[in-house]
């Protein structure tokens, strides 16, 4: 791996021709004096998976929130699903699913009520059937009537996965989606958020080998939010990736 940003011009040109699901160039995001993302560029074709790697404070979650239309970049250009952000964010909304650190569940609603609420926001057709099917697929059918505040972290994460895929998004943004899931739950969630889902995915994970294994492309950020690698996952070894984890945020 080179120290500098690796961008393959020819590869970029080919990807452009096939209308990328995500295209970003020179993305900068500042929080006051803190630069969370510093000139990040990336490109991802529809149906591919991008692994976003980097140490704590590298700006991975900030990048995902920009792609989710929840944050505006301070500088740079980004388009998601063919929509320029933030100008056309309204066109991308409803086509993106997010599994983040927060399950985005109202604690005083039951699991089913939370999903019904999301289904109404996304105008999901036949919501009850869809909700029943999703809850059964992650083993939560018997917890449908339970208040979200009473769920364990793992159960809440299963419900969050259901919420994220309820509206059948074209792009899944997965910020450490398996962090609270036991192996059995992770296996149950796999058809919904894994490669089997067959949608474009952006995956943040600290399990570097596994993330590289299940992705087509990788994006490596250093502790200052700078791009250290962007290219095919197969060309980035776990050892090289871990080298970027040094330094203080």
């Amino acid at each position, binding site marked *: 791996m080179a120290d500098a940003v690796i961008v393959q011009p020819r590869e970029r040109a080919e990807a452009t021709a096939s209308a990328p699901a995500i295209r970003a160039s020179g993305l900068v995001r500042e929080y006051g004096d803190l630069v969370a993302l510093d000139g990040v560029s990336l490109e991802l074709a529809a149906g591919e998976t991008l692994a976003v790697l980097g140490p704590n404070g590298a700006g991975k979650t900030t990048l995902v929130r920009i792609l989710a*239309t929840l944050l*505006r970049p301070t500088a740079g250009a980004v388009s998601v699903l063919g929509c320029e952000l933030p100008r056309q964010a309204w066109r991308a909304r409803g086509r993106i699913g997010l599994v*983040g650190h927060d399950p985005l569940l109202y604690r005083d609603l039951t699991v089913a009520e939370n999903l019904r*609420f999301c289904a*109404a926001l*996304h*105008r999901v057709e036949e919501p009850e059937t869809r909700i029943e099917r999703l809850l059964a697929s992650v083993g939560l059918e018997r917890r449908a009537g339970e208040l979200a505040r009473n769920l364990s972290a793992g159960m809440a994460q299963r419900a969050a996965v259901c919420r994220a895929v309820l509206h059948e998004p074209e792009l899944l943004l997965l910020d450490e989606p398996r962090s609270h899931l036991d192996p059995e739950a992770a296996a149950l969630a796999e058809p919904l958020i894994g490669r089997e889902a067959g949608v474009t995915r952006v995956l943040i994970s600290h399990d570097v080998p596994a993330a590289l294994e299940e992705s087509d492309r990788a994006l490596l950020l250093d502790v200052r939010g700078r791009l250290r690698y962007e290219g095919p996952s197969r060309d980035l070894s776990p050892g090289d990736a871990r080298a970027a984890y040094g330094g203080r945020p």
Partner: protein
Amino acid sequence: MSPFRAILAKDLRVELRTLQSLPGMALFAMTTFVLFRFGLDRTSLSGSLAAGVILATVLFAALLAINRLFVAERDEGGFDAIRMAPVDGTALFAAKAAALVIYLVALELVLLPAFGFLFLDDWAGLAPLAGVLVAADVGLAATGVLVSAIGVNSRARDLLVPLLLLPLAVPVMIAAAGAGESLLAAGGPSYDDVGKWLAILALYDLVFVAIGYAVYDFLLED
């Protein structure tokens, strides 16, 4: 179900389940009445004083609900969930304002009989006063939702919301007090000026509802 109905139903369901706003508002309002009763050392009120007591009590009780209006959205990720959905921000504005009007109407259903019992010799003005209060509720809700959305991410939310809301609520208070003064006049309600004050209230409501619709999408953006 439309997003407006979904958000409104969610808020009402959570309130019915947790009772986080309404009981506190009612308790606060009753305590304020008792304080007025002993502070003014009067067993009977009429005219502008009576209107002032009921309106000041409703306004300060409304602040409790306004402060809590977006807490779940902020703490439980509701803002993110709603912003990632293909939902117009005005649906959130309208649903929150409708929820606040429902809270205030529910509060006033308890408050008005208590007010009559504690302060009025003649209850004839109470029914028309309820109509004036509903018009004032709409204005308070429109401004309250705007201010609450501005203040929700501030650490000084508890200070910021009243500081922003109270000056904006002055026209509502003036118009509602003007109408209330006539309706609670000693010797029975008079309807001479009520129409004029109601027109001012309706204009205020219209302006702030329009402002809310115009700016709410921008308030929700990062």
